[in-house]
């Protein structure tokens, strides 16, 4: 069971919203309306951990170890949202999302293959870690810089915990797990195959289509693309870091060297042939 050691690792790095964030360092002169809009959108995006946690618990009812971990993951993601909400409440209350805006990103996700969801969120956490690192570099206001740094580290720890569960899955269902992880790795490192690249961009409920992505349910559905491309400028160099983080960890996990997405795709095709012939 991984939960006790992951709990200890995350507990060791626990930070306090009231005392560890240096609220007193706030500098209003280094903030624009557009910055505040971005902070509001990220607060709502973090709130969408709620339907994701519901999905994980539903789709992993047979896995008590992983379900226990989700209790911490959910707590920490809601804390991220609360931290950004607290920032807005203190310094720009007019930007605080309404309860209806937060509720809009809580909707039911269709049932999904548990191993693919696991890999998807591993990749998503790596991406989010880099987004927040990029956001930290972009902002000049000291408190939001510190907050994005704290959030980036939490997301990296989550990626590591998901990776631990992926490794555990390989011990019990090698081929099925390898197929799921390679498939999602290919999708999440190849923008040509999949423009979504993050769980919040994926369609997750057929009955609600096309209103079934988390990003599409934000008060400003165009915001994420704008924020990445024109504000924090998450360019090809940052993208490369995401790709490297995913491919290198999958290389270590699957015992193969994936120097690029193409190599992973080729490995995935080999796995499919093996599964077909089995």
């Amino acid at each position, binding site marked *: 069971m991984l939960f006790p050691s992951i709990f200890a*690792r995350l507990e060791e*790095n626990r930070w306090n919203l009231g005392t560890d964030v240096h609220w007193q360092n706030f500098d209003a002169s280094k903030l624009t309306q557009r910055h505040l809009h971005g902070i509001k959108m990220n607060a709502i995006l973090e709130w969408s951990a709620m339907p994701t946690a519901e999905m994980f618990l539903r789709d992993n009812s047979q896995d008590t170890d992983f379900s226990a971990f989700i209790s911490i993951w959910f707590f920490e993601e809601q804390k991220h949202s609360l931290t950004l909400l607290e920032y807005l409440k203190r310094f720009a209350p007019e930007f605080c999302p309404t309860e209806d805006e937060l509720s809009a990103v809580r909707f039911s996700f269709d049932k999904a293959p548990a191993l693919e969801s696991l890999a998807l969120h591993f990749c998503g956490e*790596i991406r989010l870690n880099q987004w927040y690192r990029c956001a930290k570099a972009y902002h000049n206001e000291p408190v939001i810089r510190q907050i994005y*740094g704290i959030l980036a580290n939490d997301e*990296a720890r989550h990626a*590591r915990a998901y990776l631990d569960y992926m490794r555990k899955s390989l011990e019990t269902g090698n081929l099925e797990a390898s197929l799921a992880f390679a498939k999602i790795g290919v999708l999440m490192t190849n923008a040509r195959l999949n423009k979504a690249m993050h769980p919040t961009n994926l369609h997750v409920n057929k009955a609600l289509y096309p209103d079934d992505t988390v990003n599409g349910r934000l008060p400003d559905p165009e915001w994420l693309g704008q924020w990445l491309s024109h504000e924090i400028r998450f360019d090809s160099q940052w993208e490369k870091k995401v790709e490297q*983080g995913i491919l290198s960890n999958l290389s*270590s996990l699957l015992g193969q060297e994936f120097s690029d997405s193409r190599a992973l795709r080729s490995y995935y095709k080999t796995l499919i042939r093996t599964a077909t012939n089995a």
Partner: protein
Amino acid sequence: MYCICSDKSHDDIMKQQRLDPLPFDSMISTYTCCTEGCGSCLEDLRALFEMEYPMVHSTISVKD
């Protein structure tokens, strides 16, 4: 393993360490971003360090 906070594999970190060996804490602060990062890799890196430098680790205190 790959440290996403340092944007380096554990192998690359240990390669740098082999080229210019440092006590564990200095290795972490010099060759990684773990001090400002998430810290998840520290346990694994310590294990790699102890495998390669058993005497150094057991005889020299590296705690600041």
